[in-house]
């Protein structure tokens, strides 16, 4: 019995030692034969700028890589993880997928996502990752390995209506820098114009947790530490209480969270904290109606802000070495300077490569025409990775946390007690 076990162990060790990177067979150096790979993408499931830009990116890639055919599967962002999972179950192995950061740990631990370090040789990986800003690379890492390569992502930015600032007797050239400033400005707007003062895109059904986590982390809080939930701990809870205090003073609006962006776009709100992905759409609505401006996200006093990221990363699931090579080539192109020039200028997401911003052949001309975008770029040196939850119940934990945040901000009970109760209950669902 013992002998058989030792033999099995030796055989396994021998087999794994033959493979160059972990459990992966070596990818061919190039794509020599025609290969078709699937690309699950949520931008293609929309009719907005994201779809057109993605089609352009894929056409460019196929032109550069004539042996690779990309079969696109368009799925809305809130459904795409379920589709990838359903296809894995159905035996239709996905190759590349654009998935959101909230699913990061699940993708790495349960869904069979490939770590780039296991799939690509260190030298080749280093060559591609050179030029990408290091904090951007951290976004897709789990236990030190890169499962997702940040693709379309952004950080929260403060949109403000300069006309409402003027009407409320505020200086639009001096936007709020701290949450105390937001509370004063929000209250003035509410009292003098009867419009809504401030609202963060943090509580809606499709908002995820990035705005909320940015606020919490800017106050030195965290939603979890390892497997221990900490969203009700001192700094995190105080950040939520700041929002609650603003609700009580009238500075923070009490509106349907799903309608916040429309309320701002309609000119009925003074300040709105949300991703720059919305910039193009808000600009069109504001054109000729009100003076739209942007400012960095507010801070808690002197504490530096810790903006975290919205958006998506690219993940590779291919098991076949030839498809892995084709998938990696797609990943490389989609995170190249050329691709980021298209992604930033045509959709509005942040470039993963900052050296292209002032390059006259890349984003240079666009960056000059869109000075508002600089506010978001300035925040990147403080970019803090969004924290995904571990374990099979991660979505439930996230929901319980956000439900309690909504209750703490808009409810009538003690906000800290509300968060604590939810944290205790949700802790049971953590691994």
């Amino acid at each position: 019995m013992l002998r058989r076990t030792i033999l099995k162990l030796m055989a396994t060790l021998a087999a794994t030692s033959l493979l160059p990177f972990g459990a992966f067979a070596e990818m061919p150096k190039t794509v020599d034969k025609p290969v078709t790979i699937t690309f699950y993408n949520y931008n293609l499931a929309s009719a907005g700028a994201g779809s057109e830009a993605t089609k352009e990116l894929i056409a460019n890639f196929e032109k550069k890589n004539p042996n690779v055919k990309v079969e696109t599967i368009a799925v809305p962002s809130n459904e795409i993880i379920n589709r990838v999972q359903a296809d894995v179950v159905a035996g239709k192995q996905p190759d590349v997928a654009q998935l959101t950061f909230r699913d990061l740990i699940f993708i790495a631990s349960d869904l069979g996502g490939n770590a780039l370090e296991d799939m690509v040789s260190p030298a080749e990986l280093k060559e591609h990752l050179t030029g990408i800003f290091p904090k951007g690379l951290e976004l897709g890492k789990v236990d030190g390995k890169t499962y997702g390569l940040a693709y379309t992502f952004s950080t929260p930015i403060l949109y403000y209506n300069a006309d409402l600032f003027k009407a409320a007797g505020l200086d639009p050239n001096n936007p709020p820098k701290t949450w105390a400033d937001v509370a004063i400005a929000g209250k003035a707007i509410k009292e003098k114009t009867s419009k809504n003062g401030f609202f963060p895109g943090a509580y809606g059904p499709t908002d995820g947790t990035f705005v909320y986590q940015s606020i919490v982390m800017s106050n030195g809080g965290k939603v979890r530490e390892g497997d221990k939930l900490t969203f009700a701990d001192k700094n995190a809870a105080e950040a939520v209480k700041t929002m609650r205090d603003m609700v009580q003073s009238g500075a923070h609006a009490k509106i349907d969270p799903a309608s916040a962006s429309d309320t701002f776009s309609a000119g009925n709100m003074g300040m709105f904290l949300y991703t720059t992905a919305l910039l193009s759409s808000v600009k069109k609505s504001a054109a000729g109606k009100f003076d739209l401006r942007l400012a960095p996200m507010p801070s808690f006093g002197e504490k530096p802000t810790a903006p975290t990221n919205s958006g998506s990363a690219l993940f590779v699931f291919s098991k076949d070495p030839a498809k892995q090579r084709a998938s990696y080539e797609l990943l490389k192109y989609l995170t190249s300077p050329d691709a980021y020039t298209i992604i930033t200028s045509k959709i509005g997401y942040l470039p993963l490569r900052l050296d292209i911003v002032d390059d006259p052949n890349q984003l240079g001309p666009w960056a000059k025409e869109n000075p508002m975008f600089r506010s978001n770029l300035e925040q990147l040196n403080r970019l803090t990775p969004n924290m995904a939850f571990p374990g099979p119940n991660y979505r439930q934990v996230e929901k319980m946390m956000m439900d309690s945040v909504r209750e703490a901000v808009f409810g009538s009970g003690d906000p800290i007690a509300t968060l604590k109760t939810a944290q205790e209950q949700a802790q049971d669902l953590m691994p």
Partner: protein
Amino acid sequence: MTIDTSHDHQPLASLTAETGGKTRRIAVHVVMIVLSVLSIFPIYWMIVTSLRPENEIFSTAMWPANPTLDNYVFVLTRIPMLQMLFNTTVVAATTAGLQVVTGLFAAYALVRWKMRLSGVIHGLIALSWLVPFQVTMIPNYVLASKLGLLDTLTGLILPNASHAFAVLLLYHAMRSFPTEILEAARIDGAKSWKILWQIVAPNMGAPIASLSIIAFISAWNEYFWPLLLSRKPENSVVQIGLQMFMTQEGNLWGPLMAAAALASLPILIIYLVLQRHVIESFMKSGIR
């Protein structure tokens, strides 16, 4: 001398009754007019919003200052809207047709042949109606994938080709069909196939029309199954098309309203042409 006032009283009473009736009629009309305006206003607002330029989308004016057809052009050029409308028509019409046929077969079998387990089978069919589609969605998806039906219209139609509601509606309608006629036909040598298609079905016009209309509208509005099964917009249906205007980069309200106006046109036409049948269908079968 007595004065007969009865002649005077009569017209007065009838006048009062007439006035009361008139007031009631006016009140009923006022209520109906208010309800009609409330029902029609969202459709009016959808059409008006579809004609607004982007910077007027959030305007509350009853008519756009600069009406434009740009949103319709955007819809027709950005997504394969006409192909989606065609796909939806094919899926809805075929689904409705198949539900009628499978419903007729099952109802005829349950009514015509009294088996020992008829009650159990009837109960099981009724129970299957209570199972939410989301529960069977993933097993259905895996099966559709194995059968090579992903991203096909056949895949969208097949799981809905029979429905407990169709069977139960036709079963109850068929139960009231006179058995004497069926017996007479059988004595005359007619087989079940002939009895079903030449005697029963032609006399069940009303329930079949009701079922067809409800099944068509239900299939037209289907969202979850096409969302899971479709892989490309051109192979999908119009409800998925509508969702495409709610993007990560903001909701495109103008194009969304234009697409919704286009998507609701066929259903509106059905209502206008078959108004009486549609209302009767919903009244008889309960709101679905």
